[in-house]
């Protein structure tokens, strides 16, 4: 059970105009602008749900994920995940979550993937029997057997992403955060990732929170969609709600990407 109540987070961003004069001025006095990344955000996610968390770039998606995974501390508001406050009981909390950041790598660059996995096994103190069982299952489902002995730097993006997802699931977390997991993947890899995530949710009851700009990801995976823009929750519903709210002015239905674009424009959150 994930409960987020009235969470706000502000960043201070340095601003300066273009040009040499402005650069010189900024040596002495700097202007900062407060950016409200999250503004009174509240939602609740039940166990075993699959949530699509969407919004335009800079809407506050990643900030939310970082707060939920205990990396960032919000300015105000409360978050409890299974009764724990992520940023206060960080070490306890992260034992039961798995995270995939599509644009970063958690595998050691220069060593074979299997060595990274064994390091993770020790970090999470996964019992031997459970580790081999999970590894076997993940290897089979994500077709990793050929990849495990290869150093990470020699994997293609699609291969690496499969290894990254497996790495996040070795300790059988209850909650899985996927931050743009299909970014840059080809069609085959995308479908493989989607099928795997669906299966993981169905068979292990893993709660999945997915952020992505790929509407096909959302429609394939998420029954419930939370839309965030300019730090506020604007819609909490189903994919059909998005379709309806984002319909073309004439009222005719359109494809999902167009519907989302219409919706963003209508809500003025770009």
């Amino acid at each position, binding site marked *: 059970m994930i409960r987020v109540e009235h969470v706000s987070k502000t960043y201070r961003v340095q601003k300066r105009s273009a040009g040499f004069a402005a650069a010189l001025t900024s040596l002495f006095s700097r202007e900062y602008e407060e950016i409200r990344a999250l503004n009174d955000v509240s939602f609740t996610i039940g166990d075993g749900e699959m949530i699509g968390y969407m919004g335009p770039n800079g809407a506050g998606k990643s900030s939310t994920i970082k707060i939920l*995974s205990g*990396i960032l501390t919000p300015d105000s508001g409360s978050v409890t995940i299974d009764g724990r406050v992520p940023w206060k009981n960080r070490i306890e909390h992260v034992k039961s979550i798995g995270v995939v950041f599509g644009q970063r790598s958690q595998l*050691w660059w220069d060593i074979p993937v299997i060595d990274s996995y064994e390091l993770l096994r020790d970090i999470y103190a996964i019992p031997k029997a459970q580790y081999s069982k999970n590894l076997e299952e993940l290897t089979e489902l994500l077709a990793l057997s050929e990849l495990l002995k290869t150093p990470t730097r020699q994997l293609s993006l699609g291969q690496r992403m499969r290894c990254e997802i497996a790495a996040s699931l070795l300790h059988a977390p209850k909650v899985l955060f996927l931050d743009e997991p299909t970014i840059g993947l080809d069609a085959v890899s995308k479908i493989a990732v989607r099928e795997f995530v669906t299966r993981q949710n169905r068979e292990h009851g893993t709660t999945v929170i997915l952020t992505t700009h790929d509407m096909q990801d959302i429609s394939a995976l998420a029954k419930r969609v939370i839309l965030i823009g300019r730090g506020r929750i604007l819609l909490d519903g189903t994919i059909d709600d998005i379709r309806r709210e984002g319909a073309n002015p004439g009222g005719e239905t359109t494809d999902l990407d167009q519907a989302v674009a219409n919706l963003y424009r209508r809500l003025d959150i770009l």
Partner: protein
Amino acid sequence: MKKYCSFFRVRFALGLQYRTAALAGMVTQFFWGGMNILMYRAFYEADAAAFPMTLQATSSYIWLQQAFLMLFAAWLLENEIFDDIVSGNVAYELCRPVNIYDMWFARSAANRLSRAVLRSFPILAVASLLPAPYGMAAPASAAHFLLFLLTAVLGFGVTVAFFMLVYALTFYTVSPNGLRILISSVVEFFAGAIIPLPFFPDGVRRVFEMLPFASMQNVPLRVYSASMTAQEMARAIGLQAFWLAALVAAGRMLCSHALTKMTVQGG
């Protein structure tokens, strides 16, 4: 504890891979040590009595310093840790049930140790074959050798703990480079890496010896060649223990403060 050992193991194994770097480093250090000793020889020939250490003791100091350079070098920082912080990849590390300070401590200790292991033995072997007073002499006594080991471990701990402060400070800056360059040169100077501390004028030296930098390579290298009295050694070991505890405590505090304040850069 096991997880930190695993970090240590992975980093150590990784460090052992760089054979060519080790070979090149060894050759460089051998020449560097040789040139240094020749320079000191010229000074000693002018007036041997003007120096606080014998030429033999200075030679041993220099060879040990070259052999264990990687344990104490002020410029050997973990680039991966800086990269992780600057690029925001640290997000992943924070999603692990580990204490960031302990993990990075294990990693940087392993990095230094793996490099030192590859280089130290060949350098020590060759240096001990060189004729006196230019080679490396045997330790003054078995007790001195044991004390050398103890102070080397403590000095190594102080070095790693000191640079943990640099990593933690990186959370507060946009780029770590300035801090790195500044601190590396300051540490090299005050630690006796450029000129052994006994060669400094007495007043200055007494102050230098109180600083944490003197608790790094200065103590073990001088203990080995018996250029300290028993009383001086006892005091130096006490200071090493104090600085180790103080630096670890400060590093932990700084790290946990940084984590509550930080913003992860880039998306």
